[in-house]
Each structure stands twice: as structure tokens, then as C-alpha cells.
């Protein structure tokens, strides 16, 4: 899941609905302000004490039932051996972590076993990423822009990526719970 401005409340709403013993890994990439220490992960872990929410270290193996949050100031990539790798290179579209970077690398590894979800935001990060998810056989989902505090980001994906689904936040949660139980 990738989010930017206005995505925090949607993310928490979705996470809340996902059961703790959820059988898939979830990776969250959220934009934060540069050089301002972000409390995002801390707030999440404090809000959802029963869930395992962590910022992965480099080369950490990806495990089921864990919610991973891309650390601030690094791009988060997924390797073929299902480990994370971090990348401290230039910001892409003013973003580090970049949603495009994570989506693209996940698409290459997970192919049709991937659902990528793009939430509220005020830029167009994630569009190119969703495109490669769909091109690699995965499922692309955008938050219904009408329910987004900042519609630009999901709207951009809807405009430029054919074949993606558009869901309200509650439907997004239903959908990911359904794929995990199938």
C-alpha cells in the first residue's frame, strides 16, 4: 500500500480491519517530510498493539502476518529471494521512500501474486508503479478519489493505468482479507 498526504486515516482504518493472524505480508510506503523525524511507525505500533508492525532492516526476510513500513529516507525494494533491500539514492518525484520504486520491484518478484493499493495523495507517485504491477499480472487498486482527502494520486493512476480497480476504503480492507483467505 502506498500513501501520501491524507492517507494516514485511511491506512489506520484498513489496518484495523485486517486480522492479526492475517496470512500475508503487508508493506506500507508512506511519504513523510524530509529530515523531520517521523513518528508514523511508532503511532501505528502503539495503536495496534496486537499486530506486528516493523520498519525492516536491510536484507530482512519478508514474513507472513507482518506489516512492514518503509523507513523514512530510504527506498524500500524487494529482492527475488524475498528479502528487503534498502536504497539511499536520490528522491524520485521528491519522494524517498518512493511508492513507484517499491511497487516496481515487488511487481518483478511477485508477479500475479501481488495486490498494490494506492491511497490518498497530492502528487503522482505510484502511477508508474501500479502500471508495472498490472503489466506483470498483479492487481492494481486505487482508492476512490471521492473518498480521498487528496484525490490527485489515485486519480492519476486511474487516468493512466488501464485495468485497475477503484475501491472505497472499507472495500479495500474486504478485498485484501478475501485474497488472504483464498
Amino acid at each position, binding site marked *: 500500500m502506498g500513501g501520501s498526504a491524507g492517507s494516514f486515516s485511511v491506512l489506520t482504518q484498513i489496518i484495523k480491519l485486517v486480522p492479526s493472524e492475517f496470512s500475508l505480508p503487508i508493506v506500507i510506503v508512506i511519504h513523510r517530510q524530509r529530515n523531520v523525524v517521523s513518528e508514523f511507525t511508532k503511532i501505528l505500533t502503539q495503536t495496534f498493539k496486537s499486530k506486528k508492525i516493523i520498519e525492516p*532492516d*536491510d536484507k530482512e526476510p519478508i514474513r507472513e502476518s507482518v506489516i512492514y513500513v518503509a523507513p523514512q529516507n530510504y527506498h524500500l525494494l524487494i529482492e527475488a529471494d524475498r528479502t528487503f533491500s534498502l536504497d539511499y539514492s536520490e528522491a524520485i518525484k521528491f519522494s524517498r521512500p518512493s511508492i513507484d520504486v517499491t511497487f516496481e520491484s515487488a511487481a518483478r518478484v511477485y508477479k500475479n501474486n501481488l495486490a498494490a493499493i494506492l491511497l490518498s495523495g497530492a502528487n503522482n507517485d505510484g502511477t508508474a508503479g501500479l502500471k508495472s504491477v498490472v503489466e506483470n499480472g498483479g492487481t492494481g487498486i486505487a482508492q476512490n478519489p471521492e473518498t480521498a482527502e487528496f484525490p490527485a494520486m489515485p486519480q492519476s493512476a486511474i487516468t493512466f493505468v488501464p485495468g485497475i480497480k477503484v475501491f472505497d476504503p472499507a472495500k479495500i480492507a474486504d478485498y485484501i482479507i478475501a485474497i488472504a483467505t483464498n
Partner: protein
Amino acid sequence: MSNRKVDINEEELEDLLNLVNEIHGYDFTNYARASMHRRVFRFMNDAGFHNACDLKAGLLKDKAIFDFFLQRITVNVTEMFRDPEFYKVIRQKVLPVIASYPRIKIWHAGCSSGEEVFSMAILLHEAGLLQRSIIYATDINPYNIEKAKKGILPLDVMKEYVTNYLNAAGESDFASYYTAMYDHAIIRKDLRENIVFSLHNLVTDHVFNEFQLILCRNVMIYFNHELQNRVIRLFHSSLSSFGFLALGIKESLLFSDIKNKFEAVSSQEKIFKRIR
């Protein structure tokens, strides 16, 4: 929107990296693939290569193209006093220990254009240790080393580094550490006197000295697991007993096969000590 005319697949990438190794002697085959893929892809976009064949041909026939490739394929992003908290811990927990050595030897592996090294020189200077320290700062990328030797940084970013410096418990006037010239800043000469910048490739080069402190931050994240293990062994053999190894804050020794030879000094800041 990106128009994907450019493309390279896994096998082509593998081929290309093998070729670069054979022809130019730079072995990137054990770099973390996801990020390597992205960088090669970006290089192709920027340099106008549409497919792996063209790129291979270019790299084969033209040294200048390879030089540009090398410059772009390594990630050179760096900052002074990046992760201020890290520098605080170095001040509090590491410097007092290495201060007991008559001659302090430090190695910055993968130093990029030197920002991290200048930060360390400032810490040593403030602790009164710089005079008897020698800092070896190495990188694979000749372009970085040339830049680092000059000690010149853009003035506007220096202003941003002030905040980092203050957050790293810096108590002096940061501006006194450089001379401003037009839109540039030159790091004071006396701070640079005990620094030796040179080329060193962590993949192929060997132990060259013994150190009380080795810093290798945000370099091994570009390596795969196997190469990381090799390089950590290289560091282990380059450390004096009870010497310190400092990694980037998102790098862990937990996944290394010799993790039991180290002990955490700060697990938060990823500073370790060799214990056997």
C-alpha cells in the same frame, strides 16, 4: 508518465554485469539485484540506450561511456552529520575508548565525496584527538575520490548541515569549519590534513591496515547477502581487538554469518564492537 521504450530483463542484466567484470574489472555481479536493475535502467534512460544490446556495445567500445556508467551505477548520495543521533553516540561511546590509543586509525569504507569523513574530522577535532588520528577514506568510484580530495561543497547544502551538526550535539560555530567562496564552501585545511583519500574496491581489494574504528554506512545495502558476508569478514580482519564497526542505521549484523564475533555498542545506531 514514463514511456517504457527502454528495457532490460534479468538475464540481460546478468550478462551485462559479467561483461563489465571481464572487460573493465569491476565486479557488480553480487550487488543487490533490485536496486541494480533500477540503476541500470535509469542509466539507459539518461544515456539514451534502448536495449541491453546497445548498452553492451557502448560499454565495450567506449571507455568514456563506461566511466559515466560507473559514476551513475554507484549511489553517491551523502550528507554531513547524516543521522545526528549516530554522531552523538560516536562522541559518547566510541571516541573516549579509542582515545586511549597513541595513534588512532579510522577507515571510512565507501566514503563517497567525503561528507561523512569531514564530519568525523570535526568530532575528532572537538575531542582534541585529530592531531594523533589518521583517517583512511576509500571508495570504488574515482570521481567521488577526486571530489572528496578537494573538500569543496556547495554552500547552500552546508547551511542545511548546520541543523544536523547542532542535533549531533555540536557546540561550536559550524561556519568556522569552512571558508565560504562565492557559492561554495571549502572545508578547513587543518581538518583535512590527516585524511588519506584513496581508491579501494570492497569486492576485490584486501585488508590494508588495522583500525580501531571502521565506518561503512549505506554501502553494503547495495550488496547481496553473500557479498555482505564477505565484506563483514574483511572488516573483521581489519579491526584491532575490541575495535568498532559502524554501519548505517538500517543495516544489521543479525543476518551475517559471523555476527557472534561482534557485540552491539548501540543497537539503535548500529555500532558494534569486535569481541573475538
